[in-house]
Structure formats: C-alpha cells, structure tokens
C-alpha cells in the first residue's frame, strides 16, 4: 500500500502566499496575500529574495490562522536550490523545529503528507508546511546565466517566482487532509531537461492510478485532480497515460503550471518549480475550497529529481509524484 489514511483528519486552517509580478497577472493575482512588484523583494541576491519570500509565506500563514508563532510545533519545508538553502535559511527566523524535505517540485505535497501524518498520530498540534521557488535562482542553478542570449526551446517551462505555505492543525477548519499517497520514483528514460512535463507525466499517472485503486474511488469522486507543474504538454500526456489504464480524468484534471500564467508566450508550456503548486494551491484552490466551490481535491504534485551533474553525465530524469486528498468535511 502506498496510501495512508488519516482518520483523525488534520485540517488546513490557513494559508499564506506571495508571488512575483508575472505570476500575479494570471488567475492567482486576486488571491495571493502579497504581490511583488520587484522580484528582488528588496534583497541583494535572488537566493536571499527566495528565502525572504518563503519566510513571508510562513509568517503570513501563521498570521492568517490567528496563531502566535510560539504555538507552532514544527516547520516542514523545502525548495529547489542546492542543499535546500532557502528553506533552511528561512527556518532560522523561527523559533520552532524544522524538518527539511526535498522532492523537487513535489515538495508541497510531500510536506503536507508528512505534516498530516505527524498530526494524525497526535505528536503535534500545529505544523506549518511551506515551499517556494524563484525563477532567477533556479535558472542560475539549473540552466544558464540570465543575460545569456540563448533561445528557449518550445517544450520549456518557466519557473514560478513565489512561495506558499499552510498551517495544518488537528482541528479548526472544514478543509481536511484525508489521505496521502506516496509515490514511487518513475523513470521512462527522458533525458531532455527542457521537457520536464513529459518526464514527470508517467510519475503522476503512476501515483494517481495507485491512489484511485487503493482508495477504491473513481476519478470523478474528486471535483479536481490537480498536478503541480506538468505544463500544457505534460498534462495532455498524463490524460493519455491514465486513459490507457481505463481511467478518465479529462474533465476534472487541471495543471497548476498550465493555468498560472495568463499569456503563454515565452513560458511556452506554463509554469514549473516548487512555487508553482505552492502558490496556485494555497491561494486560488484553497480559496475555492473555503467557499465550497470545490469540495474534494486531489493534489498530486510532481517533481523531477535531477541535478545539473546527473544531466551532465547523460542520465535520464527520475521523477516522483506525491498525492494528498483534501476534502471539505
């Protein structure tokens, strides 16, 4: 069994989000707590800006929950940079234990699942789970210097500048995390680092199918099955892959990366990065859950577990997908 059930139903009581100017031009613009006009966020480097965004998302989530920081038991967080520096450095601003996790762009779902498990077991009362990413710092680490005049291939995606977090507690809101499915690492041999959607789609299909099978649910049990950052192309591949296995998610599948940007121009296939699902879920989707426009959501965030070293050595891209079921009770 990959799926665990939370019979004590830990609740998402509040969220905090922040996003860059480009992201806020799209659907999340009205829902985020803070829109950045300058993606440096008043800092001297992009890494510091990313750290500050994450820190802001955590603080804002706690504030929105009406809690004191002293009541928080733990922070679970991660990001895309080497040695998850943004998360660790953000954690030094807070006076509670920190659990650093890395699941590339699936970090949000992974940290929600771990938080829910700890709460369900009764070890803790309130946990903050947050993650974020920054276009410029990711570009620097994974690709090229920003000023280099190279062209982006049409399969490529645009790393989201933004961060989002949620306070998950044992009680206090109708929105509950009811189950979680931890994914297996899936590698279908894609080596093109610009085609993350195609690399991650099989992982998403694997986890979603496992979740539906183990919970005994149909795909239409969920109002929405959201993936993290497959992009337009990956999203189409995912629909095809699960269709092959006899599951139809044509009508209720939405990809965060696909919807986050308003104009698909240089973003091509849409957004990517840990911040993508963090911003879209914690603002836009959570808003809809609160207003009960959506009641059952499966958040399946995908991550590509590569590094510049592995792709330099010609390795293919192993991918993972974790899913959490979020329902209004």
């Amino acid at each position, binding site marked *: 069994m990959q799926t665990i059930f939370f019979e004590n139903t830990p609740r998402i009581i509040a969220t905090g989000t922040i996003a860059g100017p480009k992201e806020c031009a799209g659907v999340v613009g009205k829902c985020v707590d803070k829109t950045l006009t300058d993606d440096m966020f008043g800092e001297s480097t992009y890494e510091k800006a990313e750290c500050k965004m994450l820190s802001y998302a955590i603080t804002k989530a706690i504030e929105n929950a009406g809690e004191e920081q002293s009541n928080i038991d733990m922070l679970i967080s991660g990001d895309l940079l080497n040695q998850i520096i943004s998360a660790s450095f953000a954690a030094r601003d807070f006076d509670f234990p920190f659990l650093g996790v890395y699941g590339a762009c699936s970090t949000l779902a992974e940290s929600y699942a771990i938080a829910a498990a700890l709460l369900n077991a009764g070890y803790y009362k309130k946990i903050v789970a947050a993650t974020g990413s920054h276009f410029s710092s990711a570009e*620097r680490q994974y690709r*090229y*210097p920003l*000023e*280099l*005049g190279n062209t982006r291939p049409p*399969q490529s995606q645009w790393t989201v500048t933004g961060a989002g977090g949620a306070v998950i507690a044992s009680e206090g809101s109708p929105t509950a995390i009811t189950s979680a499915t931890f994914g297996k690492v899936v590698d*279908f*041999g894609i080596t093109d680092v610009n085609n993350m959607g*195609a690399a991650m789609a099989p992982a998403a299909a694997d986890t979603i199918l496992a979740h539906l099978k183990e919970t005994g649910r149909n795909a239409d049990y969920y109002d929405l099955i959201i993936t993290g950052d497959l992009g337009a192309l990956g999203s189409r591949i995912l629909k095809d892959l699960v269709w092959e296995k006899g599951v139809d998610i044509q009508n209720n599948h939405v990809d965060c990366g696909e919807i986050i940007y308003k104009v698909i121009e240089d973003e091509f296939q849409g957004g990517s990065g840990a911040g993508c699902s963090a911003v879209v879920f914690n603002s836009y989707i959570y808003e809809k859950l609160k207003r009960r426009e959506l009641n059952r959501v499966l958040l399946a965030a995908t991550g590509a577990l590569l590094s510049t070293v592995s792709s330099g050595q010609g390795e293919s891209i192993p991918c993972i997908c974790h899913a959490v079921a979020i329902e209004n009770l």
Partner: protein
Amino acid sequence: MTGKNRENYNKNYIAYVNSFDPPTQHFKNCLRAFLVGGLICCIGQFMREIFEKVIGLNGDELSAAVSILLIFLGTLLTGFGVYDRIGRYAGAGSIVPITGFANSVASPAIEFKTEGLVYGMAAKMFIVAGPIIVYGVLAGTAVGLIYLFL
C-alpha cells in the same frame, strides 16, 4: 518492468512524447537568424570602412580593432540586459557573431558576481565560453604543428 521489456517501453514512450513536440518554425527562425546575423556583420563592415578610411588601419590590426569594438558592444548590451532579448528573437543570429561570444563571457561574469570576485565572477566567467578557448587553442596549435612538419 525490468530489463529489455522496460527498454522497449521507454523507446515507445520517447517516440510517443516526441510526437507531441510543438513544431519548430524553421522558416521563421532561419529568416530571423539571417537578418540579425547579417545586420551584425554589416555593423562590423561599417566599422571596417571607418577604421580603414579614417584611421588608416589595415590587415590584422583592422580586424582586431573591429573585433574589440564589437566585443565591447556585446558586453555593454549584455550589461543593460538587452542582449538576451535580442537572443530570444534572433536565435543563432546573435549567438554566432563575435558579440555572442562576448555575451557568453559577460553574462556569467555579471551573474556570479554575487558569489565573490575571485571564485564567483572570475572563476565562472568562462563557464560558457571556456570551451571555445580550449578547443580553439588545441585546434589552432594542431594546425600550426601540421604546417610545421609538412
């Protein structure tokens, strides 16, 4: 899925994914590369004419002066953050001219300044352009040695 079966499946999947690839716009890309590349060379030709007719340079000095001025322009446009925009429009049209070489040296220098002047800016200055120097020196010296022994 293990062994050979998995390999076959991978191949099928990769072929299937490739069928989704958005079509490359060959004609548009090539036209843009041609126009921008040609334009940069025309600017170079203009400098040649000026240096030749006004200052009276010729031969190796002339081409060195043109290269230096073009490299200056390339790094300046990189500093202003304009060159990457040109690059996105022109593709190879702005990569292949010497200004593209200047861009590939200046962009990491500006980018990695935050990691210090020695191990950041200076050490990473050639992360993109280093291979050009390495293989240029290797190939050039090889040509020289071949001519020496012929």
